[in-house]
């Protein structure tokens, strides 16, 4: 699905790279957890995967095709990958939650009946029917996170990327999110999650990828193959 070869990214030419020489392959149906200290480059990697940032060196293949900046390629990337930002409040730009969820499928050219169906399904799925007519900016942080996730789900992407999705969610919603992500993965979606909470990750993912403070990829292993000292390290993050 994703194949990264020697990817490096530098925000500022005067500073050290924020991602250093990353090699990573992700196959369809994977459930990958990304871990690492603050500032290690998790969000940067996600922005590269979604085509928002272009790496200065290295090659990036998505579904066996080389990713470039043509409209066609970007369009393909954006329709196949859904991305929930770390600060998901910036992700909402419509007048009501309903319109927010409908924006994506409308852009994909779905008929209005199908769009309506998808929006109501997702509202029910996330348990946020009551918010449908609210203004997205006036919602609480956790509610905004759910709406951002909903706006991605209605597009039915093959890959779902979530940058620290558990932040700001109540315990009840955290459990709910865990169950939802498991079901989505069972239905064949590839899922990438960045998180600092090993407990949650251990319940969810089948593979963990770890960055260190020097922005290098230092560990990439199935979760059940983690050794005890490695696991102890991850709990510290």
């Amino acid at each position, binding site marked *: 699905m994703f194949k990264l070869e020697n990817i490096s990214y530098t925000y500022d030419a005067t500073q050290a790279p924020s991602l250093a020489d990353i090699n990573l392959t992700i196959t369809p149906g994977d459930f990958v957890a990304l871990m690492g200290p603050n500032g290690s480059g998790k969000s940067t990697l996600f922005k590269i995967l*979604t085509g*928002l940032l272009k790496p200065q060196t290295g090659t990036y293949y998505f579904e066996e095709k080389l990713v470039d900046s043509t409209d066609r390629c970007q369009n393909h990337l954006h329709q196949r990958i859904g991305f929930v930002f770390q*600060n998901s409040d*910036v992700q909402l730009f419509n007048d009501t939650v309903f319109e927010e969820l409908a924006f994506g499928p409308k852009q994909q050219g779905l008929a209005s009946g199908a769009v309506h169906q998808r929006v109501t399904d997702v509202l029910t799925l996330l348990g946020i029917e009551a918010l449908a007519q609210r203004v997205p900016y006036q919602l609480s942080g956790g509610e905004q996170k759910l709406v951002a996730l909903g706006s991605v789900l209605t597009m039915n992407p093959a890959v779902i990327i979530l940058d620290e999705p558990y932040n700001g969610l109540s315990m009840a919603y955290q459990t709910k999110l865990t169950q939802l992500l498991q079901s989505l993965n069972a239905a064949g979606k590839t899922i990438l999650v960045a998180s600092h909470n090993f407990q949650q990750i251990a319940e969810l993912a089948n593979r963990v990828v770890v960055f260190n403070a020097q922005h290098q990829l230092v560990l990439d292993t199935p979760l059940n193959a983690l050794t005890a000292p490695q696991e102890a390290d991850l709990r510290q993050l």
Partner: protein
Amino acid sequence: MSASVELPNWLQQNQPVTNPSAKKHGYNPLNKNLGWLQHLLTQLNAPQNIHQTQQQPWLQVVNLAIMILLFSLAQKPLLIWLLALVWLVRLYRLSALQLYQFAKRLGHMSVFSILFILPSCFLNSWSLGLWLLFKTVLILGQVALFLQEITWVDFIKALRQLHVPPLFVLALSITIKYCHILATYLVQVLWAIELRRATTVPTPFYQTAKIMGRLYLTSKRYVLAVYEAMTLRGYQGQTTKVEHLALSKHDWRILGLDLSLIMMYCLVWRY
């Protein structure tokens, strides 16, 4: 294992990708406008390749002022030639990329200045107009070089060192930071839109206008939030930060050069 969630049917199927080349649509105002805005913002946010000098920031400002003054007062070709020579020597130290940025900046500034100078060419004589243009480009070259050699942080420091009224310095420094923060924020909002918009379906014009309006409202809200955060941390519009004039060995050399240029100006002017 926790209980699984019942997913709707469509969410369990694979979504076919609508291909941009499958349907050809004409003008798409949303894509056009957002693309333009995004380009502008990334330009604003792009790190500048600044040439590091060993000079004190305040001296860079003084140096610029002296050079501009000399260039604008100089009437004799000999003097202008000498000044231009000094300027070219300073250019020589820039790297290839910095030179390119410098040339681009100078080009943009010159085009604007031509707009102002052309009328004088038509009204007065061409030779006078061209002379004026020549001198203007040289002066703009000084400014472009200055911008290539100083960061905003240093420029603010220079103003403090030169005892410019603190309120003015503070206002300027906050404006710059604001613009930067706002641009970073707007880029993220635009990313969010880009991720969910398709290039296949044209967005109706009213929707484009609505999104643009929303963008304005969110940025306003965001700026207010930044202001609140600053107030909470005790920002009251005054600053206690004092920067002192400092001079290094390198600075004395620059000062010496400036003084000799001024002396030369006086000499050439008299004969």
